[in-house]
């Protein structure tokens, strides 16, 4: 569509972006507030950042959350990619409807249900076979993999359907075996989806409060659990400081990923145009 925006649409877009960004902007500004009371301005200061960095509790939570997020993202990308391939490239197979359902349901499943069901599952399992003997890192990671692989699968499926099958078919015509086609053509072309899938799984894990609260055990406090326990009692300037750091870090990561993916798409487009020119 190339028509121009009407004035109404421009106003809505502007208001929408203001609605999205003003709360975040205020959160950042008040992190530099010298006053102990968040909404009362007491001059600029970085004292809450210093306080934050000195807190051992915070560092432990950050470290645990980052470890879980990295392991989760890696396994979720692996499983989600396999699932996406199976759904898009393999046609019909027995149990496809059930498989597709289990792959889509986590996208919308209320977190309290997922959390509770995994908790009772882990407890029943440990009764039955003695594993997991305690809840914490492992149980949180498994729970996170289970829901974030669905998001990876969606990303991979969109990319697979978007890029079509012509190159794969060409390779097969030239005598490449299906497995070779997968590793030499499909997987490399999936890279942008794999990057965004990994990042998505990483941030989903870093962000999860509800499911982690259910399946965690004593001593395993993730960052969202720590933040939640603090903000439940009201506004806290140190949480504003933490929010600012997290927002900046995530924005940089997402921007880099977006640029990388954009460049790869541009390069692909260029290659295609070159190929057409050579043909002509």
């Amino acid at each position, binding site marked *: 569509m190339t028509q121009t925006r009407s004035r109404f649409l421009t106003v809505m877009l502007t208001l929408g972006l203001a609605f999205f960004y003003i709360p975040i902007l205020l959160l950042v500004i008040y992190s530099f507030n010298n006053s102990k009371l968040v909404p009362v301005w007491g001059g600029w200061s970085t004292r809450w950042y210093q306080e934050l960095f000195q807190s051992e509790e915070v560092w432990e939570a950050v470290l645990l959350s980052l470890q879980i997020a990295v392991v989760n993202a890696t396994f979720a990308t692996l499983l989600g990619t396999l699932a996406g391939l199976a759904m898009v490239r393999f046609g019909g197979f027995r149990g496809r409807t059930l498989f597709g359902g289990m792959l889509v349901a986590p996208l919308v499943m209320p977190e309290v249900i997922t959390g509770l069901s995994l908790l009772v599952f882990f407890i029943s399992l440990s009764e039955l076979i003695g594993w997991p003997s305690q809840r914490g890192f492992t149980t949180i990671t498994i729970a996170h993999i*289970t829901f974030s692989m669905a998001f990876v699968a969606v990303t991979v499926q969109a990319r697979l359907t978007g890029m079509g099958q012509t190159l794969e078919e060409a390779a097969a015509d030239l005598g490449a075996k299906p497995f070779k086609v997968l590793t030499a053509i499909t997987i490399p072309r999936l890279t942008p989806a794999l990057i965004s899938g990994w990042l998505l799984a990483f941030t989903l894990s*870093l962000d999860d409060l509800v499911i982690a609260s259910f399946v965690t055990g004593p001593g395993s406090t993730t960052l969202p659990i720590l933040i939640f326990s603090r903000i439940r009692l009201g506004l806290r300037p140190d949480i504003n400081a933490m929010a600012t750091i997290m927002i900046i870090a995530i924005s940089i990561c997402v921007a880099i990923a977006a640029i990388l993916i954009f460049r790869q798409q541009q390069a692909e487009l260029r290659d295609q145009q070159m190929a057409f020119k050579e043909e002509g």
Partner: protein
Amino acid sequence: MTDATQPSEKLPASSWMRDLARRAQENWRLIVIAIPFVWLLFFFLAPFFIVAKISLAELAIASPPFTRMMEWSNNGIVTIRIVFDNFAYIIDDPLYFDTYLNSIKISASATLLCLLLGYPIAYAIVRSGPVAKPIFLFLIILPFWTSFLLRVYAWMGLLADQGTINNLLIGLGLIDEPIRMLYTEFAVYVGIVYTYMPFMILPLYANMERLDGSLNEAAADLGARQTTTFFRITLPLTKPGIIAGSLLVFIPATGEYVVPDLLGGGNVQMIGRVLFNEFSRNSDWPVASAVAIMLLFFLVVPMMIFQYFQGKSSEVR
């Protein structure tokens, strides 16, 4: 499905490993399907059956959190009475019934608000120029990547009695006393609309992006007014996006815990919060399980519709 991973037992170790590698090469399709399939069966599907079991007070499961039920375990007949007790308790107690209704009401209204606000935003992005479009899209997606919890927290600072909005209004002389906004239903609406909006905009955008602009032009050439074109052409064609976006907001928002807890306080009852508290404060796991099963019961139809449309969209493209 398992024969790909089961080595032949008669062969010595090195040989069966080679055999396994060969079989893996041959049956790689099966392996690709089996690994995520088995994972989901084990960690996604199986847990629901255990929740169902506990909600029916099946006494085969006997671990410390169920001690209250252990007292009954000597007598099988009494056990069957507990089966009805958990659900009867929820259905009889008007608190639960009202909470379910209230959750659905809040979630449905918030979904409608998201649609009314999100639709023009998505449409505005689609109609933007080639340079502005990816930038706007990025700006809409970015909040979705930043912490959900912290975005809710940002509104605590805005809506509090001593918060930014009240301070601003008092400073401008518009009001004398702070307006109570935090810990009201209004705050819960704001929170849900704010945090779930990207889930509405993105499917709408994806849908609109694929629309054929020439239909609009044809309608304009034939003398249709802009509003007519919108209601007769654009709106019907974006129905899949509207359905997908609405379900992506409605289903998880119905069971939302964080927003009603932080922005609604104790004043807004939603079922996700009741379930969480039933589990964590009262440690009443059988009732929490029954609450979860009832919530699933309410959401299973919207979920099936969502899956149907997801499946269709991946086949069409």
